[in-house]
């Protein structure tokens, strides 16, 4: 049986190591669903859980970075599945239909950064962001949001 790292490496463009037991797999955004489908298919839906989704605005590169922190339960290891999307059109596929635990992470990232998760019907402004910012249409974690 192949290890989780091997399965992830196959779909990754490159890997980085932040610290031991914290490998970063950089993937193409269009492969995101494929990565999670592959994990579920090979190891079963209960072999991992998605702790959180972290979005970072990178205006200098005109990109936004998305980090999916995935914790493998039997191994007690956390890996990061990282992808970059275009800042002027921040859209990526939702994974809530295959990984329901992604709901809060996707809704939060949409609210704070304005990244649209295609296929997630629950996205709405004001999930975390106060109503006055929502009315002004501000995504507070964007570097140029001015808050």
């Amino acid at each position, binding site marked *: 049986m192949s290890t989780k790292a091997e399965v992830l490496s196959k779909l990754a463009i490159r890997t980085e190591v932040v610290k031991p037991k914290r490998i970063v797999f950089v993937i193409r955004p269009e492969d995101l669903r494929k990565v999670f489908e592959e994990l579920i298919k090979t190891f079963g839906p209960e072999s991992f859980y998605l702790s959180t989704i972290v979005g970072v605005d990178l205006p200098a590169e005109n990109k936004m970075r998305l980090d999916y922190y995935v914790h493998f339960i039997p191994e007690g290891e956390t890996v990061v599945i990282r992808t970059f999307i275009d800042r002027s059109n921040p859209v990526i596929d939702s994974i809530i239909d295959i990984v329901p635990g992604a709901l809060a992470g996707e809704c939060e990232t949409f609210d704070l950064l304005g990244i649209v998760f295609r296929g997630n019907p629950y996205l709405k402004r004001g999930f*975390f962001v*106060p109503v006055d910012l929502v009315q002004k249409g501000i995504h*507070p974690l964007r570097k140029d949001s001015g808050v």
Partner: protein
Amino acid sequence: MAVKEDRYKLVRYSPWLLHFNTGACNGCDIEVLAAITPLYDPERFGIKLAPSVRHGDILIVTGAVTKKAAERLKRLYEQMPCPKFVVAVGACAISGGVFAKSYSVVGGVDKVIPVDVYIPGCPPRPEAILDGIVKLLKMIEEGRAVSKCEHKG
């Protein structure tokens, strides 16, 4: 004893606390919880945790008040029976602390509801928290703290 004080008698004998986090980093919450453990034995002052806000006498607020928590804090305060007192625990609850100018923060607790006692620290020690509550009881006894609710009990 003056007549005015009689309505506070129950609070002075056995104040029931209600703890609410309006946006704390969890540091203050841990200290509040530690303060109500047998190690610090708050029951020697009659201090207990209230099972519901409608049984609460003293509201312990931790953390900077976020815009979203402000509405809830106000609602919680209004649900408490009179007389009621408020204790702000930690730098954040006093003024907003390190989060003071954040886009999502209103500021300290006193921006939303009246506060009787401020306990500084980041976070304050459990002894300091208990000391603040005991000082409040003393203030009530001496008539220096008056419950600020509108409907007179």
